[in-house]
């Protein structure tokens, strides 16, 4: 019972022990993640089937609209459905986690106002649901590659890097919006819109070769997700899929900078969340 556990509370005194606290609370992170996952499928008729149906249906619609109607070509040697589904897999992972993170503080407002733990646990735990969905979609993708008899390339070993990058990027954007969301409820309206626009701004339904040589190429590549999606595809579909490894450096640096800035912003605001909820 000796008081080895000493804390000091003061204004703006985001204690030096924050990261240690976060580590000590890792069990809570796990439990909150598990809660989100099990709550998600309770009281739904189709349960986990939703995670299979949604990406499949989106893919079919996209194949119909972009390939069949608009006659957009995929990279040579890559079946269009596979190109769409690979892009969709990683984009959905990004957009789901981004949305969940942005809403994480408000959704857990009952906790924020009644109990203390490092607030960063809420955005972190909200990633779990998106990740489970990602794994399911990824499984569907693998099945489809057998169906189209497209060989899995050796580059698949780089896949974890791109998943990590996606994670960093969604956390970077998500944390920033999570803080804004507490302050301004309008942000809640803005997020689905951003996600919708984002899907077209990123090479999900088309190959980014289409942007090559255009006047906006420079700006297009500033979007960190362009490099991530291209790279993710390259890992799965091999060299036939377009990927400019150069873009990876700017993507990684940019994502990290965004994450660090967002983290600083989040840390500065988290202790006053409760006053705005």
């Amino acid at each position, binding site marked *: *019972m000796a*008081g080895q*556990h*000493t*804390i*000091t*509370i*003061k*204004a*703006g*005194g985001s204690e030096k022990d924050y990261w240690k606290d976060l580590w000590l609370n890792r*069990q*809570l992170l796990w*439990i*909150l993640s598990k*809660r989100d996952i*099990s*709550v998600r499928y*309770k*009281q739904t008729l189709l349960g986990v089937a939703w995670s299979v149906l949604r990406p499949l249906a989106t893919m079919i619609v996209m194949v119909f609209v972009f390939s069949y109607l608009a006659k957009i070509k995929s990279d040579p040697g890559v079946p269009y459905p596979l190109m769409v589904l690979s892009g969709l897999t990683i984009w959905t992972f990004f957009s789901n986690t981004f949305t969940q993170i942005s809403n994480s503080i408000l959704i*857990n407002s*009952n*906790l*924020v*106002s*009644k*109990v*203390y*733990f490092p607030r960063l646990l809420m955005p972190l735990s909200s990633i779990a649901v998106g990740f489970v969905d990602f794994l399911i979609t990824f499984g569907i993708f693998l099945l489809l590659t057998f169906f189209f008899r497209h060989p899995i390339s050796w580059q698949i070993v780089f896949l974890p890097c791109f998943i990590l990058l996606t994670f960093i990027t969604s956390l970077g954007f998500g944390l920033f919006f999570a803080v804004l969301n*507490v*302050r*301004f*409820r*309008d*942000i809640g309206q803005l997020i689905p819109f951003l996600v919708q626009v984002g899907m077209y701004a990123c090479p999900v339904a088309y190959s980014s070769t289409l942007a090559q040589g255009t006047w906006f190429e420079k700006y297009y590549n500033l979007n960190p997700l362009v490099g991530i999606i291209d790279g993710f595809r390259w890992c799965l579909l091999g060299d036939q899929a377009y990927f400019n490894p150069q873009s990876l450096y700017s993507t990684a640096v940019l994502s990290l900078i965004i994450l660090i800035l967002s983290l600083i912003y989040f840390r500065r605001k988290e*202790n*006053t969340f*409760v*006053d*705005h909820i």
Partner: protein
Amino acid sequence: MPVIVAENISKKYIIDHQRKTGSPSLRDIVTDTMNKWFSGKRNDAGFAEKEEFWALRDVNFSIDQGDRIGIVGHNGAGKSTLLKILSRITEPTTGQIKINGRIASLLEVGTGFHPELTGRENIFLNGAILGMSKSEIRQSFDAIVDFAGVEKFLDTPVKRYSSGMYVRLGFAIAAHLNPEILIVDEVLAVGDTEFQKKCLGKMRDVSESGRTLLFVSHNLTAIQALCNKSFYFEKGRLIDQGETTHIITNYLSKVSHKMLEKHWDNIENAPGNDQVRIKSFRLIPDYQDDLRHIDVRTPVSFEFEFWNLIEDANLNLSMHLYTFTGECIFNVGTQSESFAKGLVSGKCELPGNFLNDGSYVVSMMIVKDTSTVLYNMEEALVFDIEDYRENVTWYGKWPGYIRPQLNFSIRQIEHAVND
């Protein structure tokens, strides 16, 4: 050795008079900024009417290990803000607190319970939220289930629980926390008497095992029973601290007894919200003799008036009467009726020879559709009832909350035979 040392703690809130609730929308910020740019000054209708409010002001104290501190004070005195700061839910504006030891706070029963999850799942979830490790929870799992009495419903989602079961489970988990410092806020306000006794017992165990307890309650009896020292807060300041009996006597004597009437002429500054506003609440005694005071014989009536601001509202009134130490004596409600916009009044008559002598606190609730509380006017009136006895030669304190005159007779049924 002090386990908590607080120096110059203050907490400031900004109250925005323009918006009653919620966060500012982006539009407010944008229009305000635009106005600032274009007119060169702040727009009066926008952001200007902000007022600082100090929920706590220059609070200093030191708590030793094993102390059981009761915190008393009126609503809005800063008690809850202090607990929130100690629990690290919000930061103080100035000052600092040093805490030695693992701290757990129970500001609500069943924090983070998810309605869709089963009792079992929620025990682990809530335990983790309150800071227990998985192995700690597993160790006390059976004890928790036993204490709450929910064995049969462990695998039922808690949304199917009765409110009593919900509260019991929530408290049971919290009761098995093993912190060095435990902070408890008014959790006894819920649950039935039996359960409250159980809770108090558990809290006594905690305090007797040498741990430190901070306890906020309106129930002075509970504070007296549990706490050896007390803090008395008024308007954000810690105005007195010391032994519990001393503090409670002080608190009771300082509180202005006899708030027999409250009224507001102007709807603008009347308490309430955009649905109802209070016009007046008064207690009218029907004095029985020339002495102008209320005693146990005096019938009194409560008259309440409010402005109803919603068209065709189904409203009823619900009145609570509390003892001064916070026990509820009764709760009465009117029938629910439909009212048009405008002034509405209610009246409740309390017969003489009903309440015992003492100090009483009345609160009045306006309820819509028999379930939604539109406004709760807490501690609205305070009144004293003096003692009065006839033909009695005993002057001890008359026991009980009420002192009704019932048909209670005594008679001789048989005479002993005289020989």
